[in-house]
């Protein structure tokens, strides 16, 4: 029983971490109809910027304070993401107005390659650490109830909390503000949005910047968990079933999807894995997402796919 609870909690926590990455995808998709393949690369880039600046800043300015270094690095990294968003709009999206989804997807792939190369050139390709003072050592609770106690990972708890805050803020933004509504309009029809005076360029800079910030947050949390290096990009693959399950256009969906996927894959790996040789969690996550899709083709909270004649 203790173990089950632990696995369950582990799954929930892992799910929250996926959600953090998934959010970036959802944001850009919901707000511009672009399936942003480069989200993984953005996470890496942002994390690299954060890690390296927090290392360089004290050297440049000659101070010791870790906290100050982190704060400055955070702002510098944010600035990087803003510059990135601006450049993406300028150099890429602006020229691809009104193109089909696959074309845009492909363009974000180009961005991915570029960003991977650029990030490693500027920031290097070793392993870097982000140390924002996340607690690493485990805590055990209810030791008197369960043998060995229940393991609680404080780092994960903090991550989950951050993800929840982000989601709440973003949901409000989309539902309650005019900009949010305009962003959804852009996703539906670029041209019509232009025709009524929505400045596509500005909208895109905004969403890509916001997505950049979620990437930065995800990068900091994941980076402090597993170190900053190239493999961070691959967690995007773990976030895919999450957004698909939650619905490509739903911010809360990213969280719920994350929780379901997280729990599903951990429980399956722990309970079914040993029977078939293990390593099943990744495909299990996808199969799980698929099963849900068969009942709701647009994901749990996604906007209904419209087909009308």
């Amino acid at each position, binding site marked *: 029983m203790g173990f089950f609870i632990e696995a369950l909690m582990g799954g929930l926590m892992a799910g929250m971490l996926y959600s953090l990455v998934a959010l970036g995808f959802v944001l850009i998709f919901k707000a511009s109809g672009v399936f942003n393949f480069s989200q993984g690369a953005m996470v890496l880039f942002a994390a690299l910027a954060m890690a390296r600046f927090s290392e360089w800043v004290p050297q440049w300015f000659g101070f010791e304070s870790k906290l100050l270094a982190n704060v400055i690095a955070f702002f510098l990294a944010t600035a990087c993401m803003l510059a990135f968003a601006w450049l993406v709009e300028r150099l890429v999206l602006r020229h691809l107005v009104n193109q*089909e989804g696959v074309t845009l997807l492909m363009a974000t792939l*180009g961005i991915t390659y570029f960003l991977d190369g650029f990030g490693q050139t500027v920031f290097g390709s070793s392993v870097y650490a982000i140390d924002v003072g996340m607690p690493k050592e485990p805590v055990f609770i209810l030791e008197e109830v369960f043998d060995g106690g229940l393991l609680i990972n404080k780092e994960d708890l903090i991550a989950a909390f951050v993800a929840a805050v982000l989601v709440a803020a973003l949901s409000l933004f989309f539902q309650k503000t005019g900009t949010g509504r305009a962003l959804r309009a852009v996703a539906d029809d670029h041209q019509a949005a232009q025709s009524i005076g929505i400045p596509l360029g500005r909208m895109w800079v905004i969403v890509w910047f916001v997505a950049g910030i979620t990437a930065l947050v995800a990068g900091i949390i994941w980076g402090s968990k597993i170190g900053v290096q190239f493999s961070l990009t691959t967690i995007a693959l773990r976030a895919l079933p999450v957004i698909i399950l939650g619905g*490509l256009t739903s911010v809360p969906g990213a969280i719920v999807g994350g929780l379901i996927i997280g729990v599903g894959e951990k429980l399956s790996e722990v309970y079914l894995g040993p029977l078939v040789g293990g390593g099943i969690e990744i495909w299990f996550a996808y199969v799980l997402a698929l099963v849900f899709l068969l009942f709701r083709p647009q994901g749990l909270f996604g906007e209904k796919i419209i087909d009308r004649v």
Partner: protein
Amino acid sequence: MIYRENGQFKTSYREDQQIFPIAQDRWFILALVAFAFVGVPLLADEYFFRAILIPFLILSLAAIGVNILVGYCGQISLGSGAFMAVGAYMAYNAFVRFEGMPLIAALLIGGLCATVVGMFFGIPSLRVKGLYLAVATLAAQFFCDWAFLRIGWFTNNNPSGSVSVSNLSVLGWRIDTPVEKYLFCLGFVVVFGVLAKNLVRSTIGREWMAIRDMDVAAAVIGIRPVYAKLSAFAVSSFIVGVAGALWGFIHLGSWEPAAFSIDRSFQLLFMVIIGGLGSIMGSFFGAAFIVVLPIFLNQFLPWLGGLFGIDVSTAAVSHAEYMIFGALIVWFLIVEPHGLAKLWSVGKQKLRIWPFPH
């Protein structure tokens, strides 16, 4: 002025329905194929065959398969790597488990098994669409990756999960040298290329495209979505499976599941998008772009650096390669969102009216 259709009148629909209705195209393609069979073996060196031409041909074939599914039928698939793997591993099993199994038969059996698997994973497409469908195919990808690593039977119980083949021959003709391998692949590509082209310009091809463009309207004129989608999955994964078998048998000789990883699936998808969705020709362009360009950049950049006396480190080269490659993708898309094939046809269009601007 060379590219003129003037004076080429079609007197029958049959003529107008040839693969290449314009005479220049026809001659050009014939010349190209002849050159590929005769000229290239005389000219190219071993590196060219083994590192560029053979992978290019095999991946073009796979891209044709993917294009049928994604480009023609509009079902986004990220499982092509898995279908390649199925083709490769099942061909391997057919080859080693049955004494005297002819090579071509083994490859085709690989393709058939891929067909079955492809159709199975295509079933969700009846309900799930677009990017959402991508997960179904990703499920195929990860499941197959896992199965080939974990289930010993597929690898003839090789503990490491990797398998290898050798002593390939067709009707007594041993396929050893790079030229022979090249010709063998070329034969496959030409045959399947023509078959695929025929399919996409026939009824079944129109059904696929109709489903892609507007499935409700397609249903109203009597196209059965089930049949159209599953047949696209079947044909596509058959071709992809054969390509996978060729990749394993001819190109690598020995492989592990990682050779058909998710990266391969993405690579194939990129090829068809860059090359041009819904274009057989585009599959070749796309394969050339994605296979050759990085290799080219990888060798060109140090040379370029050398010209200016800069010693470019390997890491810098590959980072630059990434950046340039990414930038080129974006650039091409901006110039022509419908891919290189479209760019090509716009070019032809211009040539047709040249020297006038419009």
